[in-house]
Structures are given as C-alpha cells and as structure tokens.
C-alpha cells in the first residue's frame, strides 16, 4: 500500500475513477428524466396528503395494496447487498471484489424506499413519531421499525468501512471536492495498523450484518404471519420471505452490474464470470424459492381449511390466477431455463432472468397482500382492488428516485472498490494458492502447476 501514494493520477484501474472525474452529457439527461419521475411521485403524494388515502384504490376490506407490496419488495431488494456481500466476504469468495460495493449501495439506498413506502401508506404520517413515543412492542410492525433501523445503521457502516480507502484515494488524487473526501477519509493513510483495524471491522460487521438482514425480512414476513388471516398465518413465511428477498436481491445486483458495466465501460471488472457465478447463486435461490412456494401451497391445499382454500383458489384458478401464474413463470420458469444451462448463463441471459425475477417477486408480494385481504374470513362481499394513478405515480417516483440516487453515488464514489481490486491483485492470488494447497494432502509428491490443474479440473464436463 505504501506504493500507492507514490503513483501519479495514472493509477492502475483509473478507469474506475472516471465517472467521478467527469460526467458525460447523457448523465444529465438521464438525471433529468429520473427527477421528472421523482416530481410525479411528489405531486401524487401531495394530492394524497391533501385529500386522504381515498385517492388510492384501497377500500374495505382491501386496506393494504401497492404501498405495502412496494414496502416488502424494497426491503427484499435490500438483501441484495449487504447479505450477499457479507456472505461472499466471509467465504473468501475472491470473485466478489468488484461487485460488493455495487451491492452494498443498493441495500442502503433501497431501505429508505422501503421505509418510505410505509410512510406513504400511513393515514396520519404527521403522527409517525408516535411509533417512538408510544411503542407497542407486541406489534410486529414495531419489530419492523427496530430491525429496519438497526439494519439501516449496520448496512450504512458496512458500506462505509470498505469505502474509506477509496475515499482516501479520491482525496489524494482527485481534483474535485477534496475537502469532502478528506472529511470522509477519516485520516486514512493505509498504515498496516489502519489496515488491520479496517479488516477486523469489516469482518465483524460482515458477521453482524447477516443475522440482522435475516431478521429484517423475517420480521417483515411476520407482519403478515402473526395475524390470523387466511394464507398469511403461516410458519414458513419467515424463511420463505428471506429466500425471496435474497432471490430478488441477487437479481437486483445483476441488473445494477450490467448497467454499470455498460454505462461506465467496466467490462474488464465485471466479467462474465461474475455473472456466471451470481447466476448460479440465483439458480439455487430460484430452486429454493420454488421449493418454499410449493411447500407453502401444498400445505395449504392439504390442510383444507375453507377460509384458506378460498384464498388459495382465488390465486390458482380465480381472479388472481393471471398474476399468480405470471409470477410462477417469471420467478421460476424463465430464470430456471436460462440459468440452468451454461450456454444461456451469459451476461444477457442472467440479466433477462434478473429482470424477470424482479417482476415476478413484486407480483409475489402483491399476490400475498391482496388476495388474502379480498377474501375475509366472514363472507362479506368479495373485495376488489385496482390501484389508482396516485399509487402508480408514487411507485414510479420511488423507482426513479432510487435510480437517481444510485447514479449520484457512482458520481461521488467508485462503484467498484478500487483498493479491494488492488488487494486482490497483490495479495489474494498467492493467498488463494496457499489456501488451496492447504486443502490438499501434503505427501502428494510434486504439485503440478497449480493454475493449470484448477483449470483442467474445471473444464472437465
């Protein structure tokens, strides 16, 4: 690391700093478009504040709709990051190095939109602080408040820690906003002691963030699971939601990676192997998701509780069947067929699968929230719900604002962790070789050229 300081602006991997140093004009067009979306959402929310939630499509008994779907969806995506990057870090998965940052940023940003969705859904947002003033710890919604705020703090720290060395680089070599980076760099000099502390801190945070992340989505599922409503009251909702969250999270990283790679020309850093590996992970999650979905619906079907079955059939064959089966296709059929074959597990293939999964996962949340509410236990009139423009605009506004903030982040900080790439190049290769050697029996005679061996075994069908 000492050597770093001596280098000129012609640093290795300087391409990673390019988005920060200069913006292309297209950046401003896109930013304008996205801010336009934000404005739409803002106007819609003002209308809703003024007139009341009556401007939405919500009604009796469909008290929850798109906002809560968005909430679960955004919180789900937040698992993208922190959880994935933490697992990969803890597993010493070396291919993680260029994707962790992109993932962690998604987490931190998207959490705000998760919480925002809840605020959009409140009849009295002005009384939001009552949650702190009169907390009822028996309410799963309050558990949500707790776990999401811990998660937000944890994942922000977890994003920030690995960012420090890169900020220092910007402080030292950048020309713009040096004061800003100086503040954030916290006096990072890359001394061995600092490096040691940083590595320790990152490791600790990685360990901590995993259970928090799992708890967050478990608690989100408990918002539904802890009621007695048909097809909400389910014990597997916790793990089911966590799996779904990681599923949509990975899909989101893949989309983000593809965009970054394309826009900033980072094909060299985000390589097909990254897409391949994440694609494999996605495939595993798709299978897990299918398993959970199957288990959940089969259990309901066999249980035969009429109240549950009414909802069950409304999803499988009734009014929600189009949405339900679209969900099955987009969450399982498309991703499975694309990802299970190496030939289609390309950058394009994984991205298509990811987009499909995110559509499907939004539908999954929608078909969890809405059908249950439309068929209450007592035979009141069957509820119907169609979202209004207000809900659509607020959703668009949320999406646009999220993209805008993400884009803004890439203009301020390197979206691929520079120091980790360096570290990988300088230290990890020998470390990995040593590690692999340590897996093998020592009396195996002369070891062949290590890399050849690995490649050969890998290429064997």
């Amino acid at each position, binding site marked *: 690391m000492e050597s770093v300081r001596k280098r000129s602006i012609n640093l290795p991997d300087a391409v990673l700093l390019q988005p920060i140093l200069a913006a292309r004009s297209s950046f401003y067009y896109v930013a304008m478009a996205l801010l336009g979306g934000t404005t739409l959402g803002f106007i819609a929310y003002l209308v809703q504040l003024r007139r009341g*939630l009556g401007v939405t499509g919500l009604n009796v008994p*469909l008290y929850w709709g798109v906002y809560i779907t968005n909430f679960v969806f955004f919180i789900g995506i937040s698992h993208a990051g922190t959880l994935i990057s933490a697992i990969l870090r803890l597993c010493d998965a070396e291919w993680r190095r260029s994707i962790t940052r992109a993932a962690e940023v998604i987490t931190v940003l998207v959490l705000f939109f998760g919480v925002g969705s809840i605020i959009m859904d409140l009849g*009295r947002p002005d009384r939001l602080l009552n*949650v702190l003033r*009169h907390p*009822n710890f028996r309410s799963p919604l309050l558990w949500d408040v707790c776990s999401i705020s811990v998660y937000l703090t944890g994942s922000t720290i977890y994003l920030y820690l690995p960012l420090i060395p890169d900020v220092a680089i910007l402080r030292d070599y950048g020309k713009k906003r040096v004061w800003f980076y100086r503040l954030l760099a916290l006096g990072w000099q890359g001394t061995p002691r600092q490096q040691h502390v940083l590595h320790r801190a990152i490791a600790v945070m990685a360990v901590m963030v995993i259970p928090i992340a799992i708890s967050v989505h478990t608690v989100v599922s408990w918002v539904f699971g802890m009621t007695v409503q048909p097809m909400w009251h389910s014990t597997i909702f916790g793990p089911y939601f966590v799996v779904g969250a990681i599923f949509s999270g990975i899909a989101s990283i893949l989309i983000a990676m593809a965009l970054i790679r394309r826009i900033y020309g980072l094909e060299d850093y985000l390589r097909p192997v990254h897409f391949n590996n994440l694609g494999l992970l996605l495939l595993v999650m798709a299978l897990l998701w299918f398993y959970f979905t199957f288990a959940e619906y089969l259990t309901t079907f066999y249980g035969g509780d009429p109240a549950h079955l009414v909802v069950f059939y409304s999803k499988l064959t009734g009014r929600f069947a189009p949405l339900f089966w679209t969900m099955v296709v987009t969450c399982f059929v498309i991703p499975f067929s694309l990802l299970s074959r190496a030939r289609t597990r390309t950058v394009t293939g994984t991205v298509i699968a990811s987009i499909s999964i995110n559509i499907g996962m939004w539908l999954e949340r929608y078909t969890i929230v809405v059908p249950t509410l439309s068929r209450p236990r007592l035979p009141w009139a069957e509820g119907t719900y169609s979202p209004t423009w207000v809900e659509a605009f607020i959703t668009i506004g949320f999406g646009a604002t999220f993209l805008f903030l993400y884009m803004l982040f890439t203009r301020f900080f390197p979206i691929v962790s520079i120091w980790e790439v360096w570290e990988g190049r300088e230290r990890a290769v020998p470390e990995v070789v040593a590690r692999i050697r340590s897996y093998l029996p020592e009396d195996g005679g002369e070891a062949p050229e290590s890399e050849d061996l690995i490649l050969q075994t890998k290429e064997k069908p």
Partner: protein
Amino acid sequence: MLIDLAKCTACQACMVACESENNVPCVSPEEAGRRRIISWINLLPEIEGEYPRLTMRLAPVPCLHCDSPPCILVCPVKATSLSPEGFVRQTYARCIGCRYCTNGCPYTRRMFNWYKPEWPGEFAEALNPDVSVRPKGVVEKCTFCHHRLMKARDEARAANRPLAEGEYTPACVEVCPAGAMYFGDLEDPDSAVAQLGRHPRAFKLLEELGTKPKVTYLSEGEWSGGERKEA
C-alpha cells in the same frame, strides 16, 4: 352483547341508529361504490343452497369486543386497547392510520377514514356532541356507545347509586324493534346476556380463532310446536 338471530328481522335499524348516534360520516354514492362505506355494525349475509331449498342468515355484526383481540396486539402505537370494562377502544388522536389492526381483525369490523368526514347540506346539524368526529386518516370502530356508559355512570354517581342493568344500552340495542339484541354485564351471572349466553342455541363468530368475542349469537332455532300425533 347478545343477538338472538331467531328474533332478528334483518331490518337494519341497528345500523342506521349507530350511524346517527356515532357521527359516522355520510359517504357519497360514488365512494360507496368504491366500498368506502363506514359502518360500525353491518348485516352479514350467508346464503346457502339452491332454489328452492335455501337458507339465509343475516346476522348484524358489530365489533365483537374480543377478550383477546388480535387488533390490539398488532397496533404499533397502542392506539387501541381494552378498557377496564372490557371494550376494545380506539384512541383516534394517536392512531397513525397504518391499518394493521383492520387487517388483523378476522371479522373486518374496523373502518378507516379515507377522507375528511363530510356531511352534505345541513346533515352536520344532526351531529351528536357526545361523540368526537374522527379526522381523516384514522381507524374507527364500534365503541358499544361508550359515551352513553360515561353519561349513565355520571348520572348514577351524582345520584349516589350503582349503575343498574338497562340504564346504559348502546344505540343499536335500544332501537331494535324485535328486541333481538340484549346488552348487559357478562360478569353478572343473573344478567339477561349471561343467562341467554348459556342457551343451547348460543354460539360465537369464528370461535375457533380463540379471540373470545363478547358478542354472543343465538342461532335461528326451530318452531317448537308441531303437528299433533295422529292416532
């Protein structure tokens, strides 16, 4: 409360009495079409069979004021709670309008104010000063006409005597033309509600959920007379 479905004529006077007593806002036809009608007590129709072998149960369902109410459990801000008398009450001033309680209630007996309450023309002239008008964005529900209890209790206290049975009844019970609704102290084993509650026809709505409703129903039953035995 106890509702004898054998006596109930499904006239819905209880519903109108409740709306009028409790300042329930008037919902326009368009909003009614969007299912935004607020009604604290409602007729629940259960129709079974095919023509001409049909049964229809039309049961008035107010908030059942459960002993272990799922709605109270889920409110994040303690805006709903069990009163000392056992009523499930709603603190309008604290409710944040998240509608978790409305979804937690298996009976769908909680209502939300989608808009600022409105009374066209001079309808606001008929507002009851004893009942606060709910602002927009909060959840509201049947109170068993709690304001009447407070009034009756004040009167009893002023006269220095205990509250007698029948001195306080909710508006729905009071108006019932068939006398199908009973109201009283469930803890007093001699009260009409407690006595009828032990009737073989007694049942509770969704009893299996363990919510322990304080509203008991008597099922329709059958004509006790019959054809005389032919020799």
